[in-house]
């Protein structure tokens, strides 16, 4: 089936998310849609999937104009979508999830579970998906969950498959598996729209690459196009992917983590014996695929999750069982992974958010009395200093853009007296301008002689910032590397291949002594 989009325009108020976008996908092709966060990729796909109605333009299937009023129409027309956040009911089995909405029913009116199971097995076998129809979805690893989503689309006889940022949550090995499946689907005659912001993946899998920027198509390129060209198309200028920074001058260890174990209520160890030190004046970057214990590591370091065993000391002070407040007071500045959930109170003003963890200290309070004047003065000063774009310091922080919200958090955390900066996914979902701003501030902290710990799932970010890289896999650190390490080697470590130096954390290699021997296996 030939799919064509013509002049699709979608506005949200004054914002034009898609501006006269044209795109055509031939059968048996992988068509990549490349663009930054906020470039309008997801909006476009939601239009195609019937979740949004375009303001202008039309969708053509085999040359005929169609209108999708809901996903139902799109599904009926043969379009399937694998969402970035899986649309799976966690407490249902694979078969139940696959069958939802098109359930086969026996004459008695009861569900025909056997038929669904057979269908899942059959498809699973044909495309090499290997999924057990009776497994509970919440028990499955993400890679498999993604396959369930693919089966869901295939059962509905999709001929066009949209994959929205499919690799964001996958390990390199899982990504390879996905690519294999995509190729198999392609050979089966399916068209695939592959949405991503990762240049290398797009180069590896796509037959055609369409680049989106600020809601418009800025170019169509073959897969052989160089990375630099794609990158500059994507962001609109020649980007300096690396922050300019001087070599680190590390001092004494400030944050010392020794054998940290974090378990959940069922006893599963999310962080399993992690040890490292962060020295004054250096940035330690923790790399790894999302979901390998980084979130839990940060939350445990902040006292949000209880520490099962191990020890955490900050500047010689034992913080292993300290409360979040004690840690903040002891000098931890924290930029949480999910800023809206954990970093800000959306309905509070910018000013109130800027004192969210110091509201009870002078000068913002005396005794239990708040001092609104001091809070306002602080806000005025910080808004200026961090260039927060807000209508006023009294505006609710939820009305600000993501970049400005992050600036509010930075302003608050860096404005406090602190010894270590702990930043988890500090630039997730931000535009390039804000990313540069945040990166500059982080390097500035290092240069002031503070210890900085960055956790990021983006390798580019790790390379840009880190003076030393630790890789996490399944709750363990699989190796420490200098920032000069090749990406392939990091990829192996992220997939769990043990590195040579991963023995004693006390004997960490210095940045100047790279060890570059990938582990055996893979």
């Amino acid at each position, binding site marked *: 089936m030939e799919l064509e989009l013509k002049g699709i325009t979608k506005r949200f108020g004054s914002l034009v998310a898609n501006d006269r976008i044209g795109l055509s996908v031939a059968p048996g092709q992988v068509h990549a849609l490349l663009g930054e966060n906020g470039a309008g990729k997801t909006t476009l796909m939601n239009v195609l999937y019937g*979740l949004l109605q375009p303001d202008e333009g039309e969708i053509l299937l085999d040359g005929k104009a169609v209108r999708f009023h809901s996903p139902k129409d799109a599904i009926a027309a043969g379009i399937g979508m694998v969402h970035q956040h899986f649309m799976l009911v*966690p407490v249902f089995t694979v078969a139940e999830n696959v069958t939802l909405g098109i359930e086969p029913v026996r004459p008695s009116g009861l569900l025909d579970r056997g038929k669904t199971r057979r269908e899942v097995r059959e498809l699973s076998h044909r495309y090499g998906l290997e999924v057990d129809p009776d497994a509970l979805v919440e028990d499955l690893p993400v890679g498999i969950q993604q396959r369930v989503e693919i089966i869901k689309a295939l059962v509905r006889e999709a001929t066009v498959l949209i994959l929205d940022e499919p690799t964001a949550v996958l390990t390199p090995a899982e990504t390879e598996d996905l690519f294999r499946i995509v190729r198999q689907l392609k050979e089966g005659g399916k068209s695939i729209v592959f949405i991503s912001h990762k240049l290398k993946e797009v180069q590896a899998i796509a037959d055609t690459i369409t680049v989106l920027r600020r809601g418009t198509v800025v170019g169509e390129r073959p897969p052989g196009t160089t990375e630099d060209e794609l990158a500059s198309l994507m962001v609109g200028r020649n980007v300096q992917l690396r922050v300019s920074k001087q070599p680190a001058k590390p001092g004494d260890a400030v944050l010392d983590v020794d054998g940290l174990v974090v378990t959940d209520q069922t006893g599963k160890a999310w962080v399993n014996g992690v040890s490292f030190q962060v020295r004054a004046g250096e940035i330690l970057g923790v790399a790894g695929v999302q*979901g390998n214990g980084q979130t839990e590591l940060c939350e445990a370091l902040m006292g949000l999750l209880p520490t099962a065993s191990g020890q955490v000391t900050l500047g010689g002070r034992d913080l292993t069982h300290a409360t979040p407040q004690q840690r903040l007071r002891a000098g931890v500045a924290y930029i949480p992974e999910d800023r809206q959930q954990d970093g800000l109170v959306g309905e509070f003003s910018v000013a109130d958010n800027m004192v969210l963890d110091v509201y009870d200290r002078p000068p913002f309070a005396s005794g239990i009395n708040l001092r609104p004047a001091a809070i306002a003065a602080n806000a005025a000063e910080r808004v200026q200093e961090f260039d927060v774009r807000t209508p006023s310091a009294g505006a609710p922080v939820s009305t600000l853009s993501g970049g400005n919200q992050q600036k509010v958090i930075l302003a608050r955390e860096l404005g406090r007296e602190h010894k270590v900066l702990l930043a988890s996914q500090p630039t997730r979902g931000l535009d390039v301008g804000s990313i540069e701003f945040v990166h500059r501030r982080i390097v500035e902290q290092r240069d002031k002689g503070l210890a900085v710990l960055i956790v990021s799932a983006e390798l580019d970010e790790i390379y840009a910032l880190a003076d030393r890289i630790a890789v996490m896999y399944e709750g363990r650190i699989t190796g420490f590397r200098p920032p000069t390490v090749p990406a392939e080697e990091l990829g192996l470590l992220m997939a769990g291949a043990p590195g040579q130096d991963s023995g004693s954390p006390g004997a960490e290699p210095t940045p100047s002594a790279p060890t570059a021997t990938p582990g055996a296996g893979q």
Partner: protein
Amino acid sequence: MTVADRVQPVDLDLAAQPPSSAFRRWLAPATFAVFGLVNIFVLGLYSHSGDATFAFSQAFAKVTVPNLSLPAATTCYVCGAITLVIAAVRAFAPLGMALKRVSIAVVVFLFIVALLCWADAGLTTAFNVVNLLQGTLNDSIPIMLGALTGVVCSRSGVINIGIEGQLLLGAFTAAIVSTVTGSLWLGLVCGALAGSLVAVLLAVFAINYRVDQVVLGVVLNTLILGLTGFLYDDLMVPYTNTLNSPPTFTAIKIPLLGDIPIIGPVFFDATVFLYLTYLALAGVQVGLFATRWGLRTRAIGEHPVAADTVGIPVLAMRYRNVIAAGVIAGIGGAYFTIGSVGAFGKGMTSGEGYIALAAMIFGRYTPFGAISAALLFGFMTQLQSIMSTLNTPIQSNLLLMTPYIVVIIVLAGLIGKVRGPRAEGIPYVKA
């Protein structure tokens, strides 16, 4: 496995789930131990000398079962001893979830046996177990039906605290319609429709206007309480004969089944309401877990976005389910008047809708669980009324408190945290 759990919004719970668990760990064994000690030192030591006699047949039963006599004090001691052993096991041995629940059931059962022995000790009249069970089942009908309504609503993602209002309006409507038309069946149907009328209000405000559903339920209950109270004073009191003297359903004995000793009179010799309850239980159970409707209903209660993306109309389905479920509670309400006492009285549901809500949560949002919990609460009420006829020194008000205290204890830790459908109470807004 790994990431799956983390990606799901389980972390939301971080705020609600305090880390300390020592309190919870010891709560169950401590409670058990208290029950055991009460069995021994209160019920055992203070029981009158002599035997407690239990009867298992009613007066005119075709087949009779001999009475059972137990030495009261000894039985209490034995029950207490077993309970203490269970407490010790619960404290120090790792038990699975199923065993934990069984242990709760056993402790409660032993306590009841001890309590009855103590109450009946030395009395000449035998304690009629069949009457107790029959009364329990009948007393529980509104709670059971209300709880089933709650299960369907919750599973669809809507919190229904308005069960109380549904029961009350059902009772009122059934009484007035039956009186005016003289037809019990018409009264029953209208009572059922009254239940879904309240559900319509709930649906419109909760689904359409996205009003906080807990708030909404409480306000709806106030509204119905005021409205029925107003109409009662305004119309029913002056025109009692023409508006509030309904006939009542009589018991229908099922042939053969109704003659089985013990089981027959308890389960198969009752008004149509009990049979409708069986029907509702079977319908909800099978419907939720074996039909297309059920799968979709559970999907919109757990993950409405996922349901929407495969073409299930989330809002329409929530509307339909909430309104249809209202029928069940409406029937439960009708029981208060035309199934039991006849005339309507102001606020006659006296909080059973809230008990139904508790039963639903206690029963972990499953039809059978909810029904079992409802029966437990009905049993408490029945026990209280029978105890007071036995002239026991237990104050009936204290006994009436027990179901509510049980709910709190249960919520606080005996069965761990009950997790409702994930999207329960969160209005669905299309992206």
